[in-house]
């Protein structure tokens, strides 16, 4: 039997039905699990199944239980994964008002190499409800209901909408081979861990988002979001509430320009975030290149630590234009240059792991990758347990500065010393005052939102704008800062 959604991808009838119908079976399951959860949970989260019979959560395609998910049909397994994410949040939050998530699996946009995984968010926002902590301020309806002590949402409306792709990985035109992993144990391999994605998306629906337009800075009906009281422009030292629309819009595309100024998050930052990685350049020939550089970390090899890994910085040169890609085993000359030293290579052509493998095989004790495109500091993914040397990535501009100091060198020495360590005085992803930064890419990306933590946080956080492989299912310190932010806004 094939998944039920194979009949007509994106068929409007399916979408309409999925959005409009509640399946009695799933409601009963929600009832059962909700009741089960209540005994030790601080908030009850009810998954309201909006799928029609036979599709989505009700897809009867047989499935083998996987990773602790006991479901025996595709639909049941989807529902169990949803319930796991709901249970995690339910055990974390406090509210006397059950939180309703209107959920469905429906065909969403796909290509053979990309897909919309899903979408979620608050369904309604409310201000000036009973017991509202701040007047004239938008709160997501789940939070407003918690604060009011009664359900302020329009009767029957869910507090949160969540819609996920029912065709992901199951059809040739929808990222074939990379579907949702429905197990509950994070053993997702090459698949997409659904529980992690749900934890992320539910957080947005609970209030991890501003309702003010990131691109224009305009507020909805001229009213600020509770989020905006804590979103601080660290250049002007004014929050978004205190800023003009133009200032808000500008700050949303200012690299490291926005910090979260909430007491709960800031207090938790030291126990969650690790020291910031640092590249120090020194030595007799370093000249104006000497100093500290911000770097992107690698997900392979050992993390940077103190004492630092220190050595002469030597460039790999294997291209006619003088750059070095290190995509193939190094020749004798390059091997001689990097042996016992730190290799400087250029980004491009092959993945970062391949470069690290090649310079390590040639005897390098560390690797610095210079970006080949303008942009902000970014990390490097990949996985190879055999890599034992540390690697970092610097921006194209910084790479050019460092390369300029390496022009005069011998075959084995440059007189420029690279030191790969950590800055004990600064935590990764924080501003100089120790507040976590929010995501503000310099280059505008459509839909990019300040409703995420910075990508520089270490370890990776659930609420960064991408789902990283090393995430756990934790939403609280000492691993994660998602819940402290929700506490700051009133949870």
């Amino acid at each position, binding site marked *: 039997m094939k998944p039920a959604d194979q009949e*007509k991808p*994106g068929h*409007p009838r399916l979408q309409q039905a999925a959005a*409009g119908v509640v399946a*009695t079976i799933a*409601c009963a399951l929600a*009832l059962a699990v909700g*009741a089960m959860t*209540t005994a030790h949970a601080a908030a*009850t989260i*009810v998954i*309201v199944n909006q799928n029609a019979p036979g599709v989505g959560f009700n897809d009867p395609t047989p499935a083998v239980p996987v990773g602790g998910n006991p479901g025996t049909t595709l639909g049941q397994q989807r529902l169990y994964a949803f319930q796991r994410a709901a249970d995690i949040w339910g055990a974390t939050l406090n509210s006397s008002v*059950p939180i*309703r998530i*209107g959920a469905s699996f429906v065909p969403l*946009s*796909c*290509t053979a*190499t*990309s897909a919309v*995984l899903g*979408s979620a968010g608050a369904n*309604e*926002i409310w201000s*000036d*409800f*009973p017991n509202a902590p701040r007047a004239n301020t938008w709160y997501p309806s789940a939070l*407003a209901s918690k604060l009011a002590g*009664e359900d*302020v949402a329009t*009767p029957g*409306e869910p507090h949160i*909408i969540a*819609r996920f792709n029912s065709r992901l990985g199951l059809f040739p035109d929808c990222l074939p081979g*990379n579907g949702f992993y429905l197990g509950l144990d994070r053993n997702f391999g*090459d698949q*997409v861990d659904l529980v992690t994605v749900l934890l*992320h*998306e539910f957080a*947005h629906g609970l209030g991890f*988002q501003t*309702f003010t337009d*990131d691109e224009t800075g305009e507020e909805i*009906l001229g009213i600020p979001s509770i989020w905006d009281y804590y979103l601080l422009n660290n250049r002007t030292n004014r929050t978004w509430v205190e800023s003009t629309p133009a200032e808000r819009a500008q700050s949303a595309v200012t690299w490291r320009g926005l910090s979260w100024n909430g007491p709960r998050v800031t207090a938790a930052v030291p126990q969650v975030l690790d020291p910031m990685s640092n590249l120090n350049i020194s030595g007799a020939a370093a000249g104006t290149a000497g100093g500290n550089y911000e770097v992107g970390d690698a997900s392979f090899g050992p993390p940077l630590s103190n004492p630092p890994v220190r050595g002469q910085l030597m460039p790999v040169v294997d291209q006619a234009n003088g750059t070095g890609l290190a995509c193939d085993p190094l020749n004798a000359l390059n091997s001689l240059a990097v042996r016992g030293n730190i290799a400087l290579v250029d980004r491009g052509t092959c993945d970062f792991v391949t470069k690290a493998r090649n310079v390590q095989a040639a005897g390098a004790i560390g690797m610095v990758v210079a970006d080949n495109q303008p942009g902000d500091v*970014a*990390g*490097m*993914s*990949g996985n190879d347990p055999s890599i034992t040397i540390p690697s970092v990535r610097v921006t194209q501009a910084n790479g050019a500065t460092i390369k300029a100091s390496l022009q005069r060198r011998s075959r084995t020495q440059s007189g420029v010393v690279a030191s790969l360590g950590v800055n004990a005085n600064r935590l990764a992803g924080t501003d100089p005052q120790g507040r976590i930064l929010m995501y503000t890419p310099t280059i505008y*990306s*459509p839909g*990019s939102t300040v*409703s*995420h933590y910075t990508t520089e946080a270490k370890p*990776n956080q659930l609420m960064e*704008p*991408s*789902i*990283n*492989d090393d995430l756990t299912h934790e939403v609280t310190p000492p691993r994660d800062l998602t819940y402290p932010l929700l506490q700051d806004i009133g949870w």
Partner: protein
Amino acid sequence: MSKQKMMTLSMLAALCVLATVSMHARAQTKESRSGQEGMVVVRDAQTGKMRAPTPQELRELRAKAPTSSAAVAGTPPQQPKALSGRHGGHGVRLGEKSLVYDVVTRGEDGKLSSQCVQGEDAAQHALHTEHAQQEEHRHEAR
């Protein structure tokens, strides 16, 4: 069964009934409210009859559509509809307007990268942007 559990079950049962009624109503009004997906049909070139679009046709249709109301010259952005609270206060139903989308892309090396963006238009943009060109690059593999 404890009194607390009984109360919880009663509350949840009522909630499910409420949800059932509401969701049926939503089925009838969704298209006019969200104005985003609606019912899409195409005229078949061979038969001349209307039919549901293929995925490729749907993508082409979306690509031709204006990215947002603000993108249409002279069209002011639409203000959301205000709601009145039963116990005071006022609200706005965002519906799908402000949903945050998670988009995943597979690179040439087979590795996945995801991107969380706000709004359907941004999701479509991310969906059709080459892996290497994506601005969110916390974990680029190459």
